[in-house]
């Protein structure tokens, strides 16, 4: 399901400190962890590398914004050993032919293994199911119409029924379009003051409730993407308590920022779903802590400089995130004590891997080497020219962060550092 550059594995040694505090030297032979021995002098933290279940590689169609090569290089720099790419490209990944050609390119270009998601509906039009079975056989990592909701409840129901045949999960972008219509930001006091079209919390939560009800009815699992509002978190908690096999992700920007950030009218604070209130953010952090939300996903959404260098109202939704996710969350959640480092590492690695049935990166002898070395004390400033991504639409530009990825080993290869 995951594909990366073929043909070689590295042999190397890494020194670092384990989460428990023990200093070790890890030997990787032909891409596999062969020895973990006490000793070594590095103070950097050695941990299983990260998995990002939500990345826009913009390929095919917008290679000016990102390519498989540049997006996976960004992932490597961010400490990721696996990423899942969204199918809302041009053309849409809705056929085995498009999927096959992407996987072929990834075999040549992908620095970090990539799984490609395919769309639920043909052309993301929300009308006809794609050939989920054939796409699953051809290696689709999951199915989603991300960027758009599945508006028709009947279509989503059929997709849930058929996902069992395809053997891959559904991941849903929850948005009730008649409520979000003409919205540029979260509806609340800030939108009232700025005069920007408001997007009520309900636009997400009523769709979350509907999608969970369908999943419950069909007895099928479901993954909720970029959850952003407290009402949605409450709905997810209720559904999980009732036995629905629902998982969910939250993005670094929703876990750190609120709609107050939009007062700057900086187009890099414009995202879909929009940044919520402080209580929304607190609910997301709480849910990430207790595992209701089991993964961090960047929703890395590159946009060209021209597209974002316009008045807020004219700007497209989305920000990049692969290269800053760990540092942003370490700085804004771990250091102030909102979440433990161990929890953050789990939600960035094993959590997303489990949600999508991917192999969990582990730091064990005999495991394929998927490792990240983190300098938790390193301070650095996010700058426009510091990205491997082709795009620089980061919400963190100019900010100083604490914690940095020093080395990344993905699928047995040293891909960063």
């Amino acid at each position, binding site marked *: 399901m995951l594909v990366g550059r073929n043909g070689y594995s590295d042999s190397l040694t890494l020194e670092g400190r384990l989460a428990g505090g023990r200093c070790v030297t890890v030997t990787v032979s032909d891409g596999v962890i062969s020895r973990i021995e006490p000793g070594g002098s590095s103070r950097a933290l050695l941990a299983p590398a990260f998995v990002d279940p939500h990345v826009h590689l913009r390929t095919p169609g917008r290679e000016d914004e990102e390519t498989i090569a540049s997006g996976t290089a960004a992932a490597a720099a961010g400490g990721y050993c696996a990423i899942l790419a969204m199918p809302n490209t041009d053309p849409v990944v809705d056929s085995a032919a498009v999927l096959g050609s992407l996987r072929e390119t990834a075999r040549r270009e992908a620095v970090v293994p990539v799984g490609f998601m395919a769309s639920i509906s043909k052309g993301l039009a929300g009308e006809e199911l794609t050939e989920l079975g054939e796409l699953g056989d051809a290696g689709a990592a999951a199915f989603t119409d991300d960027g758009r909701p599945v508006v028709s409840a009947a279509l989503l129901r059929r997709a849930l029924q058929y996902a069992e045949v395809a053997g891959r999960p559904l991941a849903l972008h929850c948005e009730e379009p008649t409520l979000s219509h003409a919205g540029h930001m979260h509806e609340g006091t800030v939108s009232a003051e700025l005069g*920007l079209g408001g997007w009520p919390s309900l636009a997400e939560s009523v769709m979350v409730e509907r999608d969970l009800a369908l999943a419950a009815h069909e007895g099928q699992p479901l993954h909720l993407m970029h959850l952003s509002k407290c009402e949605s978190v409450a709905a997810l908690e209720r559904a999980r308590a009732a036995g629905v096999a629902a998982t969910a992700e939250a993005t670094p920007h929703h876990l750190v920022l609120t709609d107050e950030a939009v007062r700057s009218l900086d187009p890099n604070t414009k995202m879909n779903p929009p940044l919520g209130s402080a209580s929304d953010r607190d609910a997301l952090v709480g849910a990430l802590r207790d595992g209701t939300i089991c993964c961090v996903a960047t929703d890395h959404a590159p946009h060209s400089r021209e597209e974002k260098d316009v008045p807020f109202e004219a700007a497209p939704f989305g920000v990049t995130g692969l290269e800053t996710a760990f540092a942003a969350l370490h700085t804004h959640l771990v250091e102030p004590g909102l979440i433990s480092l161990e929890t953050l590492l789990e939600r960035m690695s094993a959590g997303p891997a489990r949600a999508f049935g991917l192999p969990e990166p582990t730091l064990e002898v005999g495991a394929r080497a998927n490792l990240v070395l983190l300098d938790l004390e390193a301070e650095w400033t996010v700058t426009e020219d510091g990205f491997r991504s082709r795009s620089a639409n980061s919400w963190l530009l100019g900010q100083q962060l604490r914690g940095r990825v020093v080395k990344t080993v993905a699928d047995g290869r040293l891909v960063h550092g």
Partner: protein
Amino acid sequence: MPESSSQPERRHLLSIGDLDRGDVERILETARALDGVEGKLPTLAGRLVITLFYESSTRTSASFELAAKRLSADTLPIRSAGSSVDKGESLKDTVLTLAAYEPAAIVVRHPQVGSAQLVAKHLVTADSGATVVNAGDGTHQHPTQALLDLYAMEQALGRLEGLHVAIVGDVLHSRVARSLVQALGLVGASVVLVGPPALVPRGLAERSMEISAIESADVVYVLRMQRERMLAGANYVPSLREYTARWGITPERLRPGQKVMHPGPINRGVELDGRVADSADSLVVEQVRAGLVVRMAVLHDLLAQGVPAGEIAGVA
């Protein structure tokens, strides 16, 4: 000359939020000093004021241009129609181009929220020291309108502190209302927002859907009902007819002596009865007059802050 202002850092007027009470009082005082001065003042001689308008406008564009001319500035009016904007030039490139003419100020009106901020940002890119005056950015802010409204209110009622103002109509889509609510708050006046629930957002000020809420107001400030918002299917209100019946400002709904204001252009017979617009209690013409002196005062305040307002008449 050393700057005597309470806010020496201020360079642009993008939002009423950029001002404090002292700034507002100083601008109004400057406007009073300018009111009635005949002929041109030499204040901005040799300096360039560009008015960049991406939306249709009569009052605002005319008064800014005239205000700049009265202060002896060179003026360069640019309208999106007939300019390179028609050829797809981005706002960024337009700003970089205009910056090359070394303007002292760019007055900008644009249909999108955040456009004035973008102009200010790219003047930095262009290493230009020009001041940006926001003449309306989408549904966000229109700060000089709020300042001229304060001026007209003060002229008519003799004070601002303690005044009670009812703002009636489509607050949701009104940059005028957003700036005015903030400005009234700065000078110690109180506000009630009156209109259909879907057009009066929560979180700005006290709100009421009953037209009777205007009874206690010293000033009834009527907003324009934008017809495009009232198209079938928008459903902010069931119909324009129903809006007028419930929230239209008619002589019967007003007390004698209650002042009525409107930022223009008026839809007579929709939000405002023609008899009210033409009555002695209407300040609509005073608002237009105030527009000129207040915009002169704003340009003076931003571009010639060292010159005390009291000396202005003497300079003439």
